[in-house]
Structures are given as structure tokens and as C-alpha cells.
């Protein structure tokens, strides 16, 4: 419990847990799995949401015939509705060394801590909706994968997995990411919690999105990256590449903020082009803010 990113016992602060009530996991892609759930389904069947009428065919159940329409048209029509089905949500957590970065103003609250908190929140939402949720920790020494499941025991397994997660190493090479392609099915919801600094993570997201997975991402930044409050001489050290750069903080501030903002804008454009919903979370913000942006009332309206 001493390594970075493992200090928080309960991942969800009480205030955030209270505000999770009016959030819902949504997917823009209809999914068609067996079972009952909240999400739209392309398969027709019994449900509340009207889909279409079709002509009666032998073998249809008599109770599906719309008798009022028969009274008007003297023909048998079968009323069909969309079948609502559960969703599989994959929480992808970047566990490379850059995720261990903290703000000096708030020691112990690293990017990885925030990612764990967000993952726990999303798992809580999924549990409440009866959706299945799984976890993938991405690190170059091996991808840890928790297969999706539903229920309280799945949540406990999920939290146990989160507790043991530490940030080190780098973003995994493409070969090590093969389990993603094997396990994440079409139409699944994928949420990547990362700093978005690795080109590999962007590539994985765009390819997943292109392969008809519903991809969402939360870019987790430290407040120091947003504000660059350094003054005086600093030796900036990149934990992943071990590069170092000497410089005076105040002198580099304007240039860095301009370049970094530009880079984020370009990245957002790429994500938008791929149809990836994205939100940004800075470590000094409340934990539910990115969730509200991703799953807020605007997107959840059609589920009401």
C-alpha cells in the first residue's frame, strides 16, 4: 500500500458516489446479446420499444398479433419491439510509469489513483444497470485481463484487481495487445483511462472504434500539466523514456502551454474523426466530472 496509485482504500469518494445516481452507461451502438438489459438491440423481440409491424407468418404466437389493427384492416399483423439487452463494458487502464505522476499540491493522488476511481465508478454504474464489466490493465510486462461479468462477486474481483495495480514500465507493444482483439466483442463498450501521451494508445482506440466497438476515453492530466506552475530551475524527467531536460520553469511556461494545448486539440480532432467519445479529467477536479461529460443527461436522454 505504499507504491504510487494504491493508497486509496475506497476508490469512490462518498460525495461522488452520491452524484452517480443520475448517470447511466450508454452505448450508441445497438448490441444484440441474450438477456434483458437497458440497451438498444438490433434484434427484434419482446420489449417496450416499438420497432415495426410485419405480416403474420405461420408459427408466430397468437398473442403477438395486433388485434386492433386486424379489426381495421382485416389482415393479421404482428407487432414487433426492440429487445433490450445488456452491455459488456471493458475498462482499459493504462498502467505505464507516466500514470504514477502526481501533483506537488496533492501528494498521493496520482493519475493511476484517478483512473482506479473512475474505473470503480463505471463498474458501479454497470453493476446497477445489470451490465457486464471487465478490466484490462495495460503494461509492457503483460496485459492483465479480467473477463466481463455481472454481479456483486464480479465487482469484488474487479476491485481486488484494481488494488493490486501499480504503475510502471511502458505502453505494451502491439503483440501483447492481441488479447484485446480476441476478447472484446463487436458492440462492446470500451473505456480507456489513460494520459493519452502514448501513440500506441491512440492507435488502439482508433482501431477498436473502426472495428465497431464503442470506444470512450478519459484523458487524465495533472494540474501541473495544465497550469505549468513551475518557477526556477527544474530538471524535468520523463519516467518512461528516462529523458531529462533542464530548464527554467517560468521561461518555458508559455511555450509549453501553447504546444500542449495544440497537441491536445489535434488529438481531440483525431478522436472525433474516429467517433470516439472523449473527456478530459484534471487531477484537481471532482471525479464524476468526466463521467458526467461522457454519460450525462444529454446522451442518456434516449434511455429515459
Amino acid at each position, binding site marked *: 500500500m505504499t507504491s504510487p496509485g494504491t493508497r486509496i482504500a475506497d476508490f469512490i469518494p462518498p460525495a461522488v458516489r452520491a452524484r452517480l445516481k443520475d448517470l447511466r452507461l450508454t452505448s450508441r451502438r445497438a448490441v444484440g446479446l441474450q438477456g434483458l438489459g437497458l440497451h438498444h438491440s438490433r434484434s427484434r423481440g419482446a420489449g417496450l420499444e416499438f420497432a415495426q409491424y410485419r405480416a403474420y407468418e405461420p408459427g408466430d404466437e397468437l398473442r403477438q398479433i395486433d388485434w386492433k389493427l386486424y379489426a381495421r384492416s382485416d389482415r393479421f399483423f404482428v407487432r414487433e419491439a426492440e429487445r433490450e439487452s445488456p452491455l459488456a463494458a471493458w475498462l482499459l487502464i493504462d498502467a505505464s510509469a507516466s500514470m504514477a505522476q502526481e501533483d506537488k499540491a496533492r501528494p498521493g493522488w496520482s493519475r493511476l489513483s484517478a483512473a482506479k476511481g473512475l474505473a470503480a465508478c463505471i463498474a458501479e454504474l454497470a453493476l446497477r444497470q445489470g451490465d457486464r464489466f471487465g478490466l484490462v490493465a495495460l503494461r509492457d510486462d503483460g496485459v492483465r485481463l479480467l473477463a466481463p461479468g455481472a454481479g456483486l462477486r464480479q465487482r469484488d474481483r474487479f476491485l481486488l484487481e484494481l488494488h493490486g495495480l501499480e504503475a510502471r514500465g511502458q505502453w505494451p507493444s502491439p503483440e501483447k495487445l492481441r488479447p484485446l482483439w480476441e476478447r472484446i466483442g463487436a458492440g462492446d463498450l470500451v473505456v480507456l483511462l489513460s494520459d493519452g501521451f502514448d501513440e500506441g494508445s491512440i492507435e488502439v482506440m482508433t482501431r477498436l472504434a473502426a472495428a465497431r466497438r464503442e470506444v470512450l476515453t478519459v484523458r487524465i492530466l495533472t494540474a501541473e500539466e495544465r497550469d505549468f506552475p513551475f518557477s526556477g530551475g527544474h530538471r*524535468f524527467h520523463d519516467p518512461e523514456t528516462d529523458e531529462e531536460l533542464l530548464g527554467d520553469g517560468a521561461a*518555458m511556461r508559455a511555450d509549453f502551454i501553447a504546444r500542449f494545448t495544440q497537441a491536445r486539440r489535434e488529438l481531440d480532432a483525431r478522436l472525433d474523426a474516429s467517433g470516439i467519445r472523449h473527456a478530459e479529467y484534471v487531477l484537481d477536479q471532482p471525479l464524476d466530472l468526466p463521467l458526467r461529460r461522457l454519460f450525462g443527461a444529454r446522451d442518456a436522454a434516449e434511455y429515459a
Partner: protein
Amino acid sequence: MSLAFLIPAALAALAALLLPLLIHLARRSEQRPTAFAALRWLRQKPKPRHRIRFDEWPLLIVRLLLIALMALLLARPVLHGGEAHTPYVAVAPGIDPAPARGVSARARVHWLAPGFPSIDAAPGMTNASLASLLRELDATLPDDVKLTVFVPQRIDHADGRRIALSREVDWRIVPVAPPTDAMRKAVPPPAMVVRHATERAAATRYLRAAALAWQPPDSGAKVDVASIEQPLSPNTKRLAWISAGSVPGNIREWARSGGTLLLDVDAKIEDAPAWTPLWRDEAGDALVEGAAYGRGRVLRFTRSLAPQAMPQLLDPTFPQQLRAALEPPAAAPSRVAAAEYKPLTGGPTFAIAPRDLQPWLALLIALVFLLERWLATSSRRAVAP
């Protein structure tokens, strides 16, 4: 009031002010390691601006102040014109100070005693010269200070002439019952004992004549003249030893214990002291030399006691001259009526010695040092980077 420095060259030590500044800047230049994953978007400036920046201003200022004060201390600052200009009242010891207090409400009242203690303190009994104290007081007071002096009607230890001060003195005479000291007794004429070797008996007549001349004319006193074998009477004060060769040990012992020994030119004395001329002839050559010897004195003739060698033997003033050489001069009279002793004006004016600021500066340095320690070690201070 104006500030001056006795050693202005020591102000060069102010260059040491650069020391804390340089240390401060050197400490700032060290680089703090910072984890920063977004290094890709961070670019080293082609010319990194090194702005001179100070933090912990209060501590730096206090340290600079400390060094500046030490440099000032080396330069020996003095303050001109810081003296008080209120009237000054000096009271000779032994006088009731009550009337002196009533001279002026603003006046400073002090005893006229060494160190000039305040009138509230008890003046130590002293026989310091009143004239000397007045001159010191006059020299240490600024020109425009009005000086009032209370003296008893009879002044002891006065100078031989009226003193001249640089200012007009308000000379107040207070009648005081004169101390009932015993009148000085008349000094009895000296008596001299002569011991001579037989072959020099002729020389003793001059000494006997001189010794008789010292006595009152009708006293009928006799002069003890004998050969050197004769013992001395126990109350002998002066002895003329007219003999060649070494002076015997018992005579030297007697001289050491307080006697006055007058030696012949040929007499030798071991452990002879350094001689000082006491009596010179017209040509300036010494006739009688003398020196202290133990608790007593030793004198000797530089010529043999014969008129051919020393014509002064036949002089009518020989007894007075010899007596003057044998006896220390009597003190001049030093008691005077205060009314006759009012100081004159027109004496020399002295520049007032400036006040030395070093002790106050040292105190200030100690206080600033304490402040510096407090600032440097207080817990409010941020963790040193």
C-alpha cells in the same frame, strides 16, 4: 548631529554584501528534479533566460543588514554634536547639594569629583585637584553650556595660579565650617651625623659647619662627628660617610631601611643605583648626585671635599645648597580662599570629543543576529528547496 567614521577605509568591508547575494543566487541555480511525463511538448529555450530572482526576501535583507552593520562597526562610527546643551551645575564634594538643585529645572547637577557622578550618588572622598576637575569639565562641555560651580569658601589642593577656562563660570561660594585639621607643625631643622676616616678629618669641618648652620642660632646643638668605628645612635636620620673604599654592610642596611646616606667621592657602594644630579655648579656639572636606595636615599659628592677641587665649600650658600640636596622640596601652599579663585575666562577651547557609537552598534548587531536566527530557524519557513 553628524555621523563620522574614524576608519573610513574599513567601509570597503561593505563589499562583503555581495557574499550572501552570490550564495543566494548560486543556491537558486541548482535544478530540482521533477517527474514530468509530458516532456515531449517541453522544449528547451534556445537561450534560457536566467532571471535574477530572490526569494525569502526578509531573511536575505536581515543578513545583508547584519553584514553592513559589521562593516560599519569596523569603520568606528562616531557621532558629533550629540551632547546635551542643558546648563551644568557642578558641586564640590562636602557641600549641601540642596541649593544646587534649585538653580534650574533643566540643569544637570553633578559632583565635582573624578568621573563627575550624579548628585544623587554619594561622592567618594577624594583629594583630586579642583582646578584639574574644572579644566576637564570645561573641555568636555560644549561651548554654549552654562556652567555653575558650587565651591566651599576655602579650597584645598588649588593650583598656584587662577585657572583660565573657555567660558564664564557662575562661581557660587557656600560657607562651610572649615575642617578642624591640625595646623602644620614647623619642620625641625635636619640633624646630620658625620663619620670619617682619620686621613680625611680635614674635610669634615665644612660638613660640621653646614650642619651647625642649619640649626637655630642659639640652640647650642652639637654635631656628632666621629671616626668610622663609632657606632651610630639609633635615631640617626642623615649620615655623611667620608671614607674611601666600600661602605660596610651595616651602614648599607641602615640606608636601605630609611636613612639618608651622603658619601665621599672615593666611597664605593655595591649595588649602586643610577645617579641623578641634585646640585649643579654654574658650569652645569653635577656636584652632588643622588638616588633612591631601598626605602632610603644615597647621595654622593662628585669631587673631593677640598676647596681646591670644590670651591663651593667656601660659598656662603653651601649649607642651604646641601640642605636642599639632602631634603626633598617642601610642598607649595595649595589652600586658597574661594573668592580669590574665581576662574578667569579666555582659556583654551577644545573640540568636544565625539561620542563613540561602537557599543550601541555591537548591541544592534546582536539583536539583528537574533532576528536572523529566528527567521532562519522558524517553522513558518518553507522547506528549503
